[in-house]
């Protein structure tokens, strides 16, 4: 074959292959959102109020049938300890299912780091959960459309449809997703969708004695939580990924990722 012929054929092949592509139409996400704009759930975490009791984790795992002893959880609490000689430690033993009952830092594998009481600079607790991003990385990558953002902003996983490939787990910048050891599908925080739709608070919000966790409808300007998000200095986790997280944090430190 001459080179010229080759080029000719290449062009023909490419032109032929491009026809079916044009038949694909992309759904405009804004249109989908506009269909039901009345409720958009958002979460507010006040890290200054959290004492690391872990009641939220226990309530979440109980409410949502997440195996208590498996190393998976939909929500967890991290402990940050900064020492005066400028070392930083972060841990979250069992996701703080049993709270923090030890001043030592859990380094994993049964090792602990003792920190001198007088050397502790600042220390605080940060509850984490799915951010229910407005532009989620996880729903984008699912090969079978088993995970999606519901009209009210909650990101859900269709447990009967998920094939368990684990791609969404690695796409999430917040490590909010995990592999359900019993159901063998991806699992994540649902904002307690079943409770929201019954008019109840989500289990973690309900369980928090200190008001560190709250939820509100961000499309309702009069909602007290929306008021806080609008008027106070709140931050979100890792906004550099363009995911537009819908969990807002009060008292976020730079080291919290």
């Amino acid at each position, binding site marked *: 074959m001459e080179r010229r012929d080759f080029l000719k054929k290449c062009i023909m092949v490419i032109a032929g292959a491009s026809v079916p592509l044009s038949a694909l139409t992309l*759904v405009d*996400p804004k249109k*989908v959102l506009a269909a039901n704009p009345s409720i958009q759930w958002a979460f507010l975490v006040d890290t200054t*109020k*959290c*004492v*690391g*009791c*872990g*009641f939220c984790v226990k*309530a979440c795992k*109980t*409410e949502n049938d997440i195996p208590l002893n498996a190393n998976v959880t939909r929500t967890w609490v991290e402990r940050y*300890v900064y020492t005066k000689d400028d070392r930083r430690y972060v841990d979250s033993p069992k996701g703080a299912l*049993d*709270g*923090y*009952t*030890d*001043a030592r830092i859990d380094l994993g594998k049964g090792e602990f780091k003792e920190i001198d*009481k007088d050397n*502790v*600079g*600042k*220390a*605080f*607790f940060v509850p984490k959960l799915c951010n229910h991003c*407005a*532009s*989620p990385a996880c*729903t*984008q990558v699912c090969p079978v*459309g*088993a*995970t*999606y*953002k*519901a*009209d009210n902003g909650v990101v*859900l996983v*269709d447990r*009967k*449809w998920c094939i368990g490939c684990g791609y969404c787990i690695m796409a999430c910048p917040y490590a909010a997703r995990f592999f359900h050891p019993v159901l063998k599908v991806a699992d994540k925080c*649902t904002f*307690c*969708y*079943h*409770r929201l*739709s*019954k008019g*109840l*608070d989500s*289990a973690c*919000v*309900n*369980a*928090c*004695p*200190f*008001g560190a966790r709250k939820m509100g409808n961000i499309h309702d300007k009069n909602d007290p939580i929306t008021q806080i998000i609008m008027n106070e200095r709140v931050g979100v986790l890792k906004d550099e990924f363009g995911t537009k997280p819908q969990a807002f944090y009060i008292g976020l430190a730079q080291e919290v990722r």
Partner: protein
Amino acid sequence: MYSYHRKSNEAEWANQPAKYGTTGREKLHEFCAECHGDVVKIRTEKLHGTIPCENCHGPVLNHPEKPEKLDVDRSRELCLRCHTNLPYTTSERKRIPGIDPKTHNTGAVCVSCHNPHNPSLEGMK
């Protein structure tokens, strides 16, 4: 957003049964007060009043039908969630009285001395 999904799945999630009632901070124990009115009222006036009943008494599920009696968690570990002394002066934890679990009456259950519904030291049993 990428709302390309099995529509019926939203209903499947919505129809899951709830285990915890609404005894949390926002609703101030309304559910329990319906039957246990006076007791709840007295107990929630004290320091521990902000703690939802279910955190210690367990999820209500379909109580009072099933379970008839809730399984109360009276363990030392439950109290230690908040009352372990952690030297964190910059955290809210500093405002909560704490003990060293390794030295403070090891092995004993807290509720044998302290009254969880009236936790002030005067209220000790």
